[in-house]
């Protein structure tokens, strides 16, 4: 589990943990190669456009490799510490969900936000986002319809008042041109 201080309580390294770190290493490698393509140095030996990307990329590769190594070397010690953590069984959280349901909820929210953004060119920004709020509260959070509608209408009204009326932001209305 991660505390906000950037001082995580170490979990045991999982397979996905290693995949994440390896993914970063891959990003670093791509940056290194592309950076070299942009040119490290100019004609007179001046720093070129590829210099910092290559350096940062190379650093990420080396540091991620070291981190992967450390994760497995220190695995035992970390596992011991992790034993004291909140068990992730089927205990229900404040949302009333189990661990598996939680992971599914994250995927759902990602999907809904993605769909809302795809909807923007058609329904406009405000309506798409309002639909997003409604679908999340009703479908993902299983809240009663009335409070969910009120919550949606409230945030829509607030956003309209602040951004459109007061700040004069030219919010795209989409092909429907409603709001």
């Amino acid at each position: 589990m991660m505390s906000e201080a950037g001082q995580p309580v170490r979990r045991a390294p999982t397979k996905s943990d290693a995949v994440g770190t390896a993914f970063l290493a891959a990003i670093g490698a791509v940056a290194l190669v592309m950076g070299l393509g942009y040119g490290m140095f100019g004609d007179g030996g001046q720093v070129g456009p590829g210099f910092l990307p290559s350096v940062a990329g190379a650093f990420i590769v080396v540091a991620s490799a070291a981190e992967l190594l450390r994760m497995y070397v220190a695995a035992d010690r970390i596992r011991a510490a992790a034993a004291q953590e909140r068990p992730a069984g089927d205990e229900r959280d404040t949302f009333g969900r189990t661990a598996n349901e939680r992971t599914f909820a994250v995927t759902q929210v990602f999907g809904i936000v993605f769909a809302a953004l795809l909807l923007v060119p058609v329904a406009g920004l405000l309506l798409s986002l309002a639909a997003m709020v409604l679908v999340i509260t009703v479908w993902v959070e299983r809240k009663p319809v009335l409070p969910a509608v009120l919550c949606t209408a409230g945030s829509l009204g607030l956003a309209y008042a602040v951004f459109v009326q007061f700040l004069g932001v030219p919010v795209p209305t989409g092909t429907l041109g409603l709001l």
Partner: protein
Amino acid sequence: MIDRRTTASLLALAATGLLVLSGCSGNAQGGEGDGGSPGRNITMIVPFSAGGGSDLAGRAIAQGLEDVTGSTVTVENIVGGSGAVGYSDLLAKEGDGTTLLASETALMTLPVVQDVQFSHESFTPIMKVGEDYNIVVVAADASYETCMDVVDAAAESSLTAAVSGATGPDHIAWSLIEDQHDISLERVTFESSAEVTAALLGGHIDVAATSPGEIVGQLESGDVKPLCALAPERYEYELLADVPTGAEQGIDVTFAQWRGFIAAGGVSEEHEQYWIDAAREYAETDAYETYIEDNMLQPQVLYGDEFRRYLDEYRQQVEAVLGDE
């Protein structure tokens, strides 16, 4: 005392609040107006963020056009891609006479240097509002007195020239001077004219070419010394009247950042003419003069086809310098 203006502004704020509460937006759709007007609700795209030079120009032009046409001209800052996003937005408005764009040199440099879908030929040029030439400046205690001194010194030893942006008009001007006099200056690139000024005042670089409006404060206080103006004629402003042109000192380079506005490509001739007429009318107003003077531009105005020919020539110069980089 709280004066009338305050009361009015407060009332306006309150009215906005009421409008919000009643949920009425009152967005009157402008139909075809008289006299070939493309509509009553006009959008002026500014491809850079609020508060910058392009924004100042866009708002001044929008206000001027509002006054002479009676239409509502709304400024929209569409920011991104060093201007490319705003221009791309106008590109998508092909044939729409109600969208204008406050344009400047980025229209010419972006197609040369970057992979963008547009060039100046994709749009309908309406009005070149003015030219912003560069003046060559050094710190007040520098030993140079003329631009030729700088060129001579650069032939002897390596000098550093501060430029604002790698494709800025000052960079192009220096490149033209380098070609003409067979010298080479080490460029130090800054993000803005203000940073160039700071580096000059701190003595970190040797010389800079900057538009006069950006450095007028330092000129007035005497913290920087103007050497020459890279313009065809001397400025008429009192502060700059004594600054000789480059040509007077043997440097025959003039290169300016121009400002103006364009319409989308493929607009009807009727709408093009409507905007050119409006622009001509705007150029006669006091508001136009104030904008030019506040920003120390030279009021060299061109409309429609003349403006287009100017851009064609400009493109060749930009290509000659930036095309092979």
